[in-house]
């Protein structure tokens, strides 16, 4: 029963299978460069053809079936934050190759060129609905949104920054898990991000974690599942172990909808499922609820 356990620990495979077409994944800016406006995109879920311009206008949510296409970190920041309010921080932190892992340098180079991203998370400060906040937005295109030392460090710094400046924090998770190319150092980022988050909590600051498709492995099993409030986009794959690992380890049949947002809501793991088009509004409202008032109770 268990002998295949290690053979089958293929965290990334499931995710890769579900990858949406490269064209749809790219950030708006990038896509514009590559695709003429008249192009059609096929919806992953309902298989209908969508005029690309309409898809972009609809925040990459299928107008027909509400399927949420993956989007890049900058796309999110652009549509979520008050215009002109975002200020990137810690952009100078990037991945090295700390354990000389075979092919990692090349992988990094290639991903950086293809995505025009420096790292798998963008961190900074900005405003939503006028409320200042600290922000961390992951990008799946950067090695499956995996968390290596640089991603971990940027998140730790933004959490520490939030604690120091008394800002609420919002993170957008999208990740296949830890970045194995950095070995144990990658695992340690789970502890590093969690402990930095404790500082946010000690200061009585709000932390909202938004889970998007997919949020699995070491990212779900660290900061992303520890939000005061946890929001998921509809239909997102969220969990600890990948479906293939589970099936190969346990021979269990997994029900339809297993590890999707709706499943997690039912099982008490998240607070809310919010459509991407409502997300800005919901975040603004939640942030406003937690703005410090004069009438606050002193503890």
């Amino acid at each position: 029963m268990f002998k295949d356990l290690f053979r089958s620990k293929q965290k990334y495979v499931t995710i890769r299978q579900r990858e949406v077409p490269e064209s749809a994944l790219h950030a708006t800016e990038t896509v514009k460069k590559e695709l003429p406006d008249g192009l059609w995109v096929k919806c992953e879920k309902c298989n209908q053809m969508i005029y690309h311009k309409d898809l972009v206008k609809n925040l990459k949510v299928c107008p027909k079936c509400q399927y949420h296409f993956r989007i890049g970190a900058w796309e999110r920041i652009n549509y979520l934050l008050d215009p002109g309010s975002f200020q990137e921080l810690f952009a100078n932190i990037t991945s090295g190759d700390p354990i000389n892992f075979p092919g990692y340098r090349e992988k990094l180079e290639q991903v950086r060129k293809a995505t025009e991203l420096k790292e798998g998370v963008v961190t900074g400060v900005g405003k939503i609905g006028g409320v200042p906040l600290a922000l961390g937005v992951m990008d799946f295109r950067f090695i499956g949104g995996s968390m290596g030392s640089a991603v971990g460090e940027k998140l730790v710094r933004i959490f520490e920054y939030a604690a120091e400046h008394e800002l609420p924090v919002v993170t957008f998770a999208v990740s296949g898990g830890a970045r194995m190319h950095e070995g144990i150092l990658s695992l340690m980022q789970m502890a590093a991000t969690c402990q930095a988050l404790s500082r946010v909590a000690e200061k009585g600051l709000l932390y909202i974690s938004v889970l998007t498709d997919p949020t699995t492995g070491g990212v779900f099993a660290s900061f992303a599942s520890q939000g005061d409030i946890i929001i998921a986009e509809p239909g997102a794959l969220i969990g600890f172990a990948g479906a293939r690992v589970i099936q190969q380890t346990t021979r269990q049949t997994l029900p339809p909808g297993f590890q999707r947002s709706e499943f997690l809501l039912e099982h008490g793991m998240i607070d809310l499922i919010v459509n991407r088009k409502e997300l800005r509004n919901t975040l603004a409202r939640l942030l406003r609820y937690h703005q410090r008032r004069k009438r606050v109770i002193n503890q």
Partner: protein
Amino acid sequence: MKNGSKYSLDFERPLKELEKRIEEIRLFAEEKQIDMSEEIARIEEKARSLKVEIFKNLTPWQKVQIARHPKRPTFLEYIELIFDGFIELHGDRLYRDDPALVGGLAYLADIPVTILGHQKGRDTKENIYRNFGMPHPEGYRKAIRLMKQAEKFGRPIITFVDVAGAYPGKEAEERGQGEAVAKAIMEMTVLKVPIVVVITGEGGSGGALAIGVGDRILMLENAYYSVISPEGCASILWKDASRAAEAAEALRITAEDLLAVEVIDEIIPEPLGGAHTNPEEMAGTIKERILENLNAIIDLDPNELLTKRYQKFRRLGRYVEE
């Protein structure tokens, strides 16, 4: 060799072969009443140096095999040998008692401590009962409960890590495996009592880290600690799980590798041939190392303890800052 002689690993075969020969010669000599003691002594000497050569030059993959050895001492055996007056405490007060994670009260020398560890089975039946030592969320939630209790009563915490990984199962996912692991990690970062972690066998990813955050991280010579199993890594990278040995090398999972990047504080030497060849000796060494490490931190002010713990995990990333 006290235990485990019937389970021999690939790389031990030449040694086992030689040991078998020695035994044959001894029997032959006895039977024929010939004095061959000098010859035997010479071959024994040869065997000893072969053993040293093998065990001082183990590849990472060979260490993984030792760490997974079916006769490697488990937590309950170490409890028996290291601690006094163990009282096991059960349950998460929420859903279930998880036999894959054992916890309770014990004395280390004369210090009352809370101890926690993954518990593999020592035979097939027990392995099924203990789910091969892989906890469900309730195991980690029991750990959290007992750790907070330790904090309430000002008891140091000692954890023993030996797990292939947090259990990847349908029910485990339903009950929030990721949440349980994360919560355990979060709690450990702020517990106001000293925590000593001993990685005794397998340090399998998040399932290990969930009871692996502490002030002192000790690791047995042949244990491994990795973000992903070598097989899993090989599967993903090269679509070929059989290249696990290669992946074990690439991932830097041995105690030496981890000491080099300061993920662990100290390597605990094993008896030649591995912990299972002499559990008593092994336990004695572990006890001594825990005691020394615990004594160095037990009188620290909780704020200082927490500041140091924070810094410890804060500086483990290796990145480029332009």
